[in-house]
């Protein structure tokens, strides 16, 4: 097949549109996401305030994305990446010598998605925060 420059450009435009979509083929299904949340909350409905989830709006590379979760008064925090093949990212449990219910690490994200953190509070209630992280595909072998 002969690709003219115009063909390549046209393909590129289509590809660009495709690349904006999440990656349904590799992502966990909704049931798996629901199960992970259900297991943690026992079905309780989380409040939408009380958790701070920090992550870059645009990740320079999806293989190493810095994230920080913080929820004052939380005993446990679960982080979920719904479009990853396995939604669970980590679960932090804070002991008696914890100096504040926060944890930072670096994570892998399989495409743009709404990163989710759910905190279990001392009183047994739950709180949740979401943050969209855009994962771009670089131009140079990214």
């Amino acid at each position, binding site marked *: 097949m002969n690709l003219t420059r115009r063909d390549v450009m046209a393909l590129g435009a289509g590809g660009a549109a495709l690349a904006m979509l999440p990656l349904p083929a590799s992502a966990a299904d909704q049931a798996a996401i629901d199960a992970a949340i259900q297991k943690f909350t026992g079905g309780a409905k989380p409040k939408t305030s009380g958790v701070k989830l920090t992550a870059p709006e645009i990740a320079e590379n999806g293989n*190493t994305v810095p994230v920080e979760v913080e929820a004052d008064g939380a005993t446990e925090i679960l982080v979920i990446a719904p479009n990853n093949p396995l939604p669970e990212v*980590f679960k932090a449990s804070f002991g008696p*010598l914890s*100096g504040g219910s926060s*944890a930072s690490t670096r994570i*892998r994200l399989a495409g743009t998605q709404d990163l989710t953190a759910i905190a279990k509070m001392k009183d047994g209630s739950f709180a949740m925060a979401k943050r969209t992280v855009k994962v771009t595909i670089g131009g140079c072998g990214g």
Partner: protein
Amino acid sequence: MKDIRPRVKVPATVKAGEAFTVKTLINHPMVSGFGKDKKTGKTIPREIINHFSCDFEGQNVIAMELDPAISANPYIQFQAKVDKSGTMTFTWKDDDGSVYTKTAPVKVG
């Protein structure tokens, strides 16, 4: 044989009962189990550090269950507070059964 060497960073001195930042870094490829061998097409089996914990003189600071979404060479940062000087113990558990530990003195001053 994997050569795993954890690193930790704790302030030189801390104040009794006041929160301080602890940073940890460990070299580990964190093989997710979702990748495929380019030549054979076979899935490369998962091998990750699946658990991290930090304790101080027998009391827990933080424990974390880690999944394959944690990046290679896991970095973990958190807050701790202590009332007295003592030893902080860090533990990483590998899928292959290995346990890596590191200790750091904490001085209240």
